[in-house]
């Protein structure tokens, strides 16, 4: 599989998504659009929670052959324990999250550290559409058309030093905005981490949208990680801190059950979860009822089907040991 990623500097005009409705709410969308010279007509929506189209998203080749899960399917069913442990809880409870304004603390081994508004963090970046498979560790999967920017392009802005071997991410802690944090279902804040080369890999993105719309709160608004070759829980949501560190971070699920969840958590059909098989997955299309009940399961692929791109990151490593 040949995959070429276009840089922001060479977008094909024909491949730039043009939408009639130009609705932009958050400043970073406007900044991104302004920087690429596209005229923008900011409009205000009556309903603050109404879906917001993101304009000027560059199409990419990623996942062009996959049929995406519907927006309703994606946004009504996921794990985001900050809003409750049921998979329909986030959609029901995430309206209390205030994603605007939002800032991220950059810390640790980097030339530029401090608090930055989200608009400063992804200004100058061309927003890209990446249609990725998302494989949950619970053996279900979706196909999600993300809108985002390569994480590498963001991290480079902060001049990580040679001591920066890993990147650690943290989710917001605020029980007022995240009612699930009133109970200790997990050890808050939710923490995730990547090795530097994983973080810098062109497949790794920071997402700000789904299906051409601003991320719904329950999907990790306003900004979240997406690492498509790892189990979904690695793709941390509603990020408030990015920390460049020397030592391997202890991610939340590893702290919760080290025998079940490791640091790497690469999708691996050869290593079963102690309680269930990882060989196959239920591909959720967003269509319910009998067609979903009788839909055949799909074979889970090594690195979630992205082995050509990422297997070299782990050459020589025993992936059953470093799971």
């Amino acid at each position, binding site marked *: 599989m040949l995959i070429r990623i276009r840089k922001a500097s060479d977008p094909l005009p024909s491949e730039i998504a043009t939408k009639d409705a130009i609705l932009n709410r958050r400043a970073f969308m406007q900044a991104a659009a302004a920087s690429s010279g596209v005229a923008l007509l900011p409009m205000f929506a009556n309903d603050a929670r109404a879906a917001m189209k993101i304009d000027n998203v560059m199409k990419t080749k990623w996942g062009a052959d996959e049929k995406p*899960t519907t927006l*309703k*399917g*994606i946004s*009504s*069913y996921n794990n985001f*324990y900050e809003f409750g*442990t049921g*998979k*329909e809880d986030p959609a029901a409870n995430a309206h209390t999250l205030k994603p605007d304004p939002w800032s991220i603390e950059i810390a640790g081994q980097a030339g530029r550290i401090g608090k930055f508004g989200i608009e400063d963090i992804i200004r100058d970046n061309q927003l890209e559409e990446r249609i990725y498979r998302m494989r949950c560790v*619970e053996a*279900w999967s*979706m196909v999600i058309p993300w809108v985002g920017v390569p994480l590498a392009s963001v991290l480079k802005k902060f001049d990580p030093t040679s001591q920066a071997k890993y990147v650690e991410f943290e989710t917001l802690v605020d029980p007022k905005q995240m009612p699930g944090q009133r*109970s200790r*279902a*997990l050890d808050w804040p939710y923490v995730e981490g990547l090795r530097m080369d994983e973080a810098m890999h062109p497949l790794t993105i920071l997402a700000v949208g789904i299906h051409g719309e601003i991320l719904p709160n329950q999907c990790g608004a306003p900004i979240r990680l997406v690492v498509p070759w790892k189990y979904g829980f690695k793709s941390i949501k509603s990020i408030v801190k990015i920390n460049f560190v020397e030592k391997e971070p202890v991610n939340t699920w590893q702290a*919760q*059950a080290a025998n*079940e969840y490791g640091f790497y958590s690469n999708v691996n059909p050869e290593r079963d979860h102690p*309680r*269930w*098989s990882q060989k196959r997955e*239920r591909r*959720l299309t*967003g269509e*319910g*009822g*009998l*067609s*979903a*009940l*009788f839909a*055949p*399961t799909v074979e889970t692929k090594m690195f979630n089907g992205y082995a050509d791109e990422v297997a070299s990151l782990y050459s020589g490593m025993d992936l059953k040991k470093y799971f």
Partner: protein
Amino acid sequence: MNTRTQRRIFKPLVFAVSLLPFGYLAYAIYSDTLLGTQLLSTDPVQKLDRELGDWTLIFIVLSLAVRPLADILKRNEIVAYRRMIGLFAFFYATLHVASYVMFHLKLDIPTFLKDIAERPFITVGMIAFTCLIPLAITSTKGMIRRLGGKGWRRLHMLIYPIALLGLLHFYMMIRADFSRPYIYGAIIIALLGYRYWKKRNTDARRNMRAAATA
């Protein structure tokens, strides 16, 4: 109202109420298929499994609650509905296992057998389900007569370990947030504790009487 009229009214009522969860799930599948709703979420395979498992545990708990309730309310006649409630526990347990094999595993029986052998929470669940089978079979009047009251009662004490295994099965499946198995656990332990307390009291009274007459 005499006991017979009461039964004539309440038996169909208890039956109908016990069928409500099944009716709702059947309606949800119909509605999600033809009306475009998502009553069973984006992942109906999982949701159906969980719902049926939940209802199995609820009916097991209800069947255990009948005796204490009859004692507290001093209305022994409600024990007459216990058999039906127990059979509904078996009904939902059967659907739970069937939905797992049919929708989760797509009738892949080798994987099912492997699951039973290798995945402890499924092993535990299947032991509980297997133990329910003789209880369902011996629920008829003929079987009670054949086993004799004492033998039948002893066999049906299997419901105590079944409840605990069902609870364990639920607990072992969860990744985080154990609040629901804890709630079920507290109720089950209270219901079993009541029986222990009652038995100790009656034993003590019997001993006292025995001592008095000696």
